[in-house]
């Protein structure tokens, strides 16, 4: 009888390598998300301004990011920078730049929505109590905004984790790529390995993303306003 494909997983360092690959995935997603949150907050505040030019530019940015596939962006940054600017960055750096570029736009839009969703009277009653603009934002508006934002932001993070599988194409060895390497290496001894390895990767993604998606649900309930 032929060996079960799952055995491949326990040959040598294969299983550990998969986790290492997942770590690369997570690192890219989490670092990009951290930048996106910071920049997105700033962008969101700018987007609520009434200046037409500002609105036009931010709108254009948001739409561009949404229309372009992330893959195109990755190629543009990774190969474009190397060819035209002579900058040789690592695939991971390029990935973080692209995901931050994307995440900032999405996050900015979320922040804008959350800020607009805060009723005008909230600003007024804070002002009526003698708070200045800074105090109003710090004690009243931002805490509410964060509560509104947390669930969709966590959602964005899980989307980002999943989308990182694209970075394979600019040479970053993350979890899917490691899986592919393992499958290729054992193609002749264990032809069924593919199913097993991808199955394990599926479960690994699930293990990472499921808690986030639960967290998002839980936050939504907890901070219901």
């Amino acid at each position: 009888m032929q060996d079960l494909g799952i055995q491949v997983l326990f040959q040598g360092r294969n299983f550990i390598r998969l986790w290492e690959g997942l770590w690369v995935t997570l690192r890219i997603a989490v670092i990009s998300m951290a930048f996106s949150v910071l920049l997105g907050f700033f962008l969101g505040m700018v987007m609520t301004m009434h200046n037409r030019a500002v609105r036009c530019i931010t709108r254009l940015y948001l739409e561009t990011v949404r229309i372009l596939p992330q893959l195109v962006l990755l190629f543009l940054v990774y190969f474009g920078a190397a060819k035209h600017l002579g900058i040789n960055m690592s695939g991971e750096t390029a990935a973080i730049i692209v995901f931050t570029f994307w995440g900032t736009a999405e996050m900015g839009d979320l922040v804008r929505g959350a800020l607009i969703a805060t009723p005008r009277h909230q600003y007024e009653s804070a002002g009526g109590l003698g708070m200045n603009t800074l105090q109003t934002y710090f004690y009243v508006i931002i805490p509410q905004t964060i509560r509104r934002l947390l669930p969709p932001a966590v959602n964005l993070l899980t989307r980002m984790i999943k989308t990182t599988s694209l970075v394979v194409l600019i040479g970053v060895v993350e979890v899917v790529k490691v899986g592919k390497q393992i499958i290729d290496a054992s193609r002749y001894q264990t032809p069924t390995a593919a199913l097993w390895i991808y199955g394990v990767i599926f479960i690994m993604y699930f293990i990472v993303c499921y808690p986030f998606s639960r967290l998002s649900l839980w936050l939504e309930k907890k901070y219901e306003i």
Partner: protein
Amino acid sequence: MNEVLQVKHLTKSYEKDEPVLKDINFNLQKGEVVVIVGPSGCGKSTFLRCLNLLEPIDEGSIVLGGETIGRKDKNVHQHRQKIGMVFQSYELFPHLSIINNILLAPVKVQKRDRKEAEREALALLERVGLSDKKDAFPRQLSGGQKQRVAIVRALIMNPEVLLLDEITAALDPEMVREVLQVVLKLAQEGMTMAIVTHEMEFAKAVADRVMFMDQGVIVEENTAKEFFAYPKTERAKQFLNTFHYEALEI
């Protein structure tokens, strides 16, 4: 005379040449309760919002305790602390518990000692019958309860004058009473107030003076007794009649 608030020749328009307030003159003595009544859109809410410096004014002046105040003043935030305001939609801060809603401004803005402020907050909550709700969140309270908390939140700043803008308009009839009783009690204790309301019975009970506004001007001003019993102008009579259904002939 002990004048807390003086308004001289106040004019305000949202759009050009369409003034919502025209040449309003208004005085408020210490301990006096003035109720402002009038049909919807007559400018009474805008007037209160101007007093609290929420709306810029076009002409005229607002004098608080002898000092002319305006939105552009450097110490506009200090002025506002002296003018408490309660809105129709209560606007408690949804992310804070009741006690923190009340304490936010005294502790963070007035820099008062939290312990001392908390004692006062609890005493005020007791007075409005809500001391058991101090750790609840706004979403757990009924409209009437929220509005009483909003009043406490304004009171703890020790304002020189309290502005109430249709504070019962969004409430169920049964809750109106519990809120208005709190206001009546405040009036008896000598709180200076300017109140906009549609509750005529309440106006009768609480007001020292009634100001009737229509289309941005003060049409009639009188003591509460006189105004409700013997309105002088035709417009005021008309307005008061709309509250008497038996007067309608079908």
